[in-house]
């Protein structure tokens, strides 16, 4: 039988990807990066939420938000649990492109939740990793 620790490791593994650091180290390093860049988790989460809402309403079609960002949501059926065990989120992938700067990011409803509630941007190598520098470039 799997121990509780083993199970938790299984839940977090896809989010840590190939990053050798622990969950706590990743969160601490990204929190420091946010501080250094003058970003707040609340402000970035609000930006991502605005992009997500605009994209999801279009059911897969691209849309331009405020003349600056091109956003699109791809959604599959079903939900995915938060590895911290507090909620479930739609299986989606939101892509945001800043048409002026050419910077693009991808995230999911779950990665937005992880950022907003747990300050966890995921490990290096995860396809849903949100890099603080990119978040600053695309949101400001």
């Amino acid at each position, binding site marked *: 039988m799997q121990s509780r620790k083993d199970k938790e490791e299984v839940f977090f593994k896809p989010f840590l990807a190939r990053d050798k650091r622990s969950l706590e180290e990743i969160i601490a390093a990204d929190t420091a990066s946010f501080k250094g860049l003058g970003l707040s988790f609340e402000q970035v989460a609000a930006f991502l939420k605005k992009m997500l809402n605009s994209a999801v309403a279009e*059911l897969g079609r691209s849309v331009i938000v405020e003349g600056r960002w091109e956003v699109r949501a791809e959604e599959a059926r079903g939900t995915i649990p938060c590895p911290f065990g507090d909620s479930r989120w739609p299986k989606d992938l939101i892509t945001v492109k800043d048409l002026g700067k050419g910077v693009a990011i991808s995230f999911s409803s779950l990665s937005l939740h992880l950022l907003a509630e747990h300050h966890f941007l995921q490990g290096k190598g995860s396809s849903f990793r949100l890099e603080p520098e990119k978040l600053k470039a695309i949101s400001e």
Partner: protein
Amino acid sequence: MSLFFVLPGIVLLGVGLALFIRARYFLISVIVNNGLYQFRFRRGQSLLEALFKKGIYLPSSCGGRALCGMCKVRVAKKALDYSEKELRLISSSEKEEGVHLSCQLAITVPLSIYLSPSILKIKRYKTRVSAIKDLTGDIKEIKLRILGKKQLVFKAGQFCQLIIPPYAENRTETRRAYSLANSPAKGQELEFVVRRVSQGVASTYLHDRLKVGQTLELLGPMGDFELHEDEEAKMICIGGGSGVPPLKSLVLDMFEQGKRKQAIWFFFGAVSKKDLFYLDFFYELEKKWPIFHFIPALSAPLPQDKWEGEKGLITEVVERYLLNTIGRDRVEIYLCGSMGMINSALNLVKRQGLDPERVYYDKFF
């Protein structure tokens, strides 16, 4: 010489005593449906896990973390405590009835539980992959034939959980729900439609590793998305992407049963032509069945699509048809697709003053 006889006796007595202590203090009795099944489980393990090992497959999709709420059981003993996590998913009326999440219920006292007959019908089947076909760039159709003479008895609209074996860095078995796309009349060869999900453990396996001829296990049937029996109502099906298969199963079943009398409108929403599939099937059905109307709609057709059909978000197209063609009287709506599509359709129902009690969709986890 006497030691030769006494020693085995002592050993046997010791073993017997150990078994008695184990049975008395470490094994706990669980009675299912008034004695239909009786088990003795090791103290402390979760009820969900223990029942699973005995071939009683309560649906669950969150790894036992009290997030999906699918593994509910009614427990006769109402004095059991509820965890805070459980209370998020148990209503006050369920609490009154002694409903618990089996994943959160550690077996520490003898239990008498009640499971619905539909839960007891869920079985584990071994299948062989008989065909894999690309339907679009990111959607595959997978056909699985149940080994032996067994058949899956299911209702159109239900789903199965495909069991993905450990692979690459995934060290444990993974179970994911996929709707059945075929008619219940064909219970031995099952059709599933799988959309690739970025970083998805199951869809990556099914798209990249699964081969024809390979065996794959599944659990089923599950779910309560099924046909309601108002044959006089006009039926509107709204689907997109991997939400189309259960609706296909529903209409195919109705066609084979020949029961339905009123019009059936099937709306298939996609972004561009490359996202549509099963078109030949639906156009063929439309020719054979006068009450069936198939309306594919594209929200952003590409110039090369040369699309002359309906354009716009699927909910906008349905709304136009409701106002101009179908009418709003005695309409029932079946929805299947992403959460975004379902929410958008529910807004349409509200906007048009349709009866929300006649809107059916799968709470698909």
